[in-house]
């Protein structure tokens, strides 16, 4: 007889075993014992457990509804995934790994895919530690039978990103069939001074950790009739805020995204300064442009290596295992670049540049060093510069096919980026829907050109850095690098083919019409902003 086929169709589920949770506030965690004089208690051995809590710096896993903890590090690393805030009662999987995971792909198969969807390229880092000390007491009846459990819990949560916090809880756990005893004990515990009944939830250590916010920056609101200097100043202040918000993470080298966001903000600022010539006085413009170029050059090598490491780690496990000695050598080089980067970022030159930028674009400084275009409506200036840049991109794209020289394709990519930054400035003046078409064409083209350039840079870097992979690493590592290089070159060729198709699309009449329409809207933006006479 197959029992599983005999289930009742009605409600025949097991009734839950009752549980109550109290927080201990302003009293000793064991004070409750003095308030149950009639109860016979049997103490069990105290237990301790600790968990290292992991997430990306911007808490991507948590925001996606997952907690990740390392329960043991020896002899193998044991990681557990659980629904956010339910680590004690629920699990989404336990994994044994060779070492602490650093990226999503350090997990096996499906888990790696799931986590990669949440983390993308972000590193997994320790964000805190949770230590639990638990003392368990059986409450006995006259037959020495356990009729309930009382657990004293001491939770210590601390770490790099945590306020050191200590939470003491008392958990009254029922035993099936002894509900009356449970109710009676619950009433008695309610009367104990310092015990506060709280909702029965798992202790959520991750919630106590200070979330690191990723500051990619908000695009500032620009009034349609804003003047060029004021518009540029607002955008510049937003970029400087991003640089400041990412400064600690960039210097600490916690995650490649900090440096990436810093570089994007600085590049955007540099590009707009260059394209909006005449808004600042010529001398000021020349100085700031030169210094921003220097800062970009300081941060470039580290970023290039970050993207290469990202690609290397993305390789399938078999190749990655062979690449391990190369990865170690490359990571060593990345650490050396980080020291150099920190030294430059902490240095007087970088600090002076950032201070000068802040001063230049602060509200207090006004237009002291403004140029001849400063008072012009920002929208008009943008319309003019947008048209010029778009024509430049069209000209270059026409002249370059899939087999064009890498340097010229890179120049085209930079022109595309500049055009994109100008388009971003149009957000206050042109409806979002109108901008969307132009953005889409440009983004795809820029993406293909980015892949061409990545292949160039990665190929060059691998050839340069291969020297640093010691002979002791063996022929497997060098052969693996060769295989990786073949892939890089293949990716470069594929990207070039993709570029050819996307360039044709960008040069098509509808794309050009989208830009012309934007220019037209920009030209009339300030008039539309003025109140109409009655």
């Amino acid at each position, binding site marked *: *007889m197959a*029992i*599983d*086929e*005999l*289930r*009742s169709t*009605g*409600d*025949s*589920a*097991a*009734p839950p*075993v009752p549980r109550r949770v109290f927080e201990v506030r302003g009293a000793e965690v064991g004070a409750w014992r003095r308030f149950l004089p009639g109860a016979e208690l049997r103490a069990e051995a105290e237990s301790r457990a600790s968990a290292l809590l992991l997430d990306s710096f911007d808490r991507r896993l948590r925001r996606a509804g997952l907690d990740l903890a390392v329960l043991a590090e020896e002899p193998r690393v044991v990681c557990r995934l659980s629904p956010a805030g339910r680590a004690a009662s629920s699990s989404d999987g336990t994994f044994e790994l060779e070492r602490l995971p650093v990226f999503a792909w350090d997990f096996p198969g499906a888990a790696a895919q799931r986590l990669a969807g949440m983390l993308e390229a972000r590193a997994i880092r320790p964000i805190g530690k949770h230590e639990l000390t638990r003392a368990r007491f*059986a409450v006995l009846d006259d*037959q*020495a*039978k*356990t009729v309930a459990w009382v657990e004293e819990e001491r939770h210590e949560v601390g770490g790099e990103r945590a306020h050191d916090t200590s939470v003491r809880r008392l958990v009254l756990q*029922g*035993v*099936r*069939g*002894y509900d009356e005893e449970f109710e009676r004990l619950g009433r008695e515990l309610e009367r104990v001074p310092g015990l506060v009944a709280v909702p029965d939830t798992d202790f959520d250590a991750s919630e106590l950790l200070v979330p690191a916010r990723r500051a990619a920056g908000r695009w500032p609101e620009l009034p349609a009739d804003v003047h060029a200097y004021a518009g540029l100043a607002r955008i510049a202040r937003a970029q400087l805020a991003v640089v400041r918000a990412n400064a600690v993470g960039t210097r600490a080298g916690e995650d490649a995204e900090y440096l990436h966001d810093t570089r994007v903000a600085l590049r955007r600022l540099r590009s707009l300064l260059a394209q909006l010539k005449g808004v600042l006085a010529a001398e000021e413009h020349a100085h700031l442009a030169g210094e921003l170029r220097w800062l970009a050059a300081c941060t470039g090598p580290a970023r290039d290596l970050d993207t290469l490491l990202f690609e290397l780690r993305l390789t399938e496990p078999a190749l990655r295992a062979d690449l391990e000695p190369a990865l170690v050598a490359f990571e060593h080089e990345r650490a050396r670049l980080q020291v150099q980067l920190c030294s430059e970022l902490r240095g007087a030159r970088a600090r002076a540049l950032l201070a000068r930028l802040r001063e230049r674009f602060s509200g207090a400084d006004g237009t002291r060093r403004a140029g001849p275009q400063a008072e012009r409506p920002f929208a008009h200036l943008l319309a003019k510069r947008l048209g010029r840049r778009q024509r430049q991109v069209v000209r270059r794209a026409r002249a370059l096919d899939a087999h064009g020289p890498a340097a010229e394709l890179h120049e085209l990519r930079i022109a595309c980026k500049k055009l994109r930054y100008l388009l971003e400035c149009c957000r206050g003046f042109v409806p979002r829907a109108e901008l969307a078409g132009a953005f889409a064409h440009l983004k795809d083209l820029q993406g293909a050109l980015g892949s061409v350039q990545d292949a160039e840079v990665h190929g060059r870097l691998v050839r340069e850095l291969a020297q640093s992979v010691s002979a002791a690493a063996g022929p497997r590592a060098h052969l693996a690098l060769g295989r990786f290089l073949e892939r890089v070159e293949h990716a470069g060729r594929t990207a070039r083919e993709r570029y050819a198709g996307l360039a044709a699309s960008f040069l098509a009449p509808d794309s050009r019409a989208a830009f012309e329409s934007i220019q037209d809207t920009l030209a009339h933006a300030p008039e539309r902003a003025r109140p109409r006479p009655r």
Partner: protein
Amino acid sequence: MKVLALHNLKGGVGKTTAAVHLAHLSARAGRSTLLWDLDAQGASSWFFRVRVAESTRPRRLLRDRVALWGAIRGSDWPGLDVLPADLSLQDLELALHDEPEPERALGQALADLGRHYERVWLDCAPGLSRLAQCVFRVADALVVPTIPTTLSLRTLADLYKHLKPERERGLLMLPFFSIVDGRKAMHRDVREFARAQELGFLTTEIPYSAQVERTAARREPLTAGAASDGAQAFEALAREVDARLADVDGAPKLRRARLLEFLQSQA
């Protein structure tokens, strides 16, 4: 869910001792476990200090799920619950007589318990009661503690014969030697014969020992305390039962003819 019954036609063979230890080990391994005491002596209930509530009417356990869940008591061990019994269990026997399909009624009750429990151990009374017949039809395996004597082997051979239809439908027979006293010649001979003829006995044997006997007085499984020979024997038994459950097709068969030959040779 798996339903495993501890049964032997004979009494005093170590069914309850094995049941409480195997149930404890099953819970200790992290499986939600129920031990259903189906012996009116209520020995396993007593072992776990669990009493039948005055309000419990065993007759209702088959049809009334609220009554069924209400009769279950948590033990002192995490993950292990007990459905206790006492002399009132005869009420359940009577209820089975009234059922048109008694094994179906018991099977349905077990199926509903299976929503919560991963493993249910049935501690059966000796003999061939109506309740035992129902157990044979619904259980996944029959764990049969057997004292290594010729009489015990004869009883086991009869049980195998009686259970032929159930065995054919897939009931797994898991006999093992219990209360083994290595000083006794008969114990030695019977075990040797069983090993040589591959009669399908589990290889683990539970020795006769004061330590095992004392567990009943202490009302605490050996497997809950420090490591001991007795605890290790039950742990090995539990592992072997799990392995057989996982590989039903690989289970050796009892060679009844050989067994009967052996009994004649001992006469």
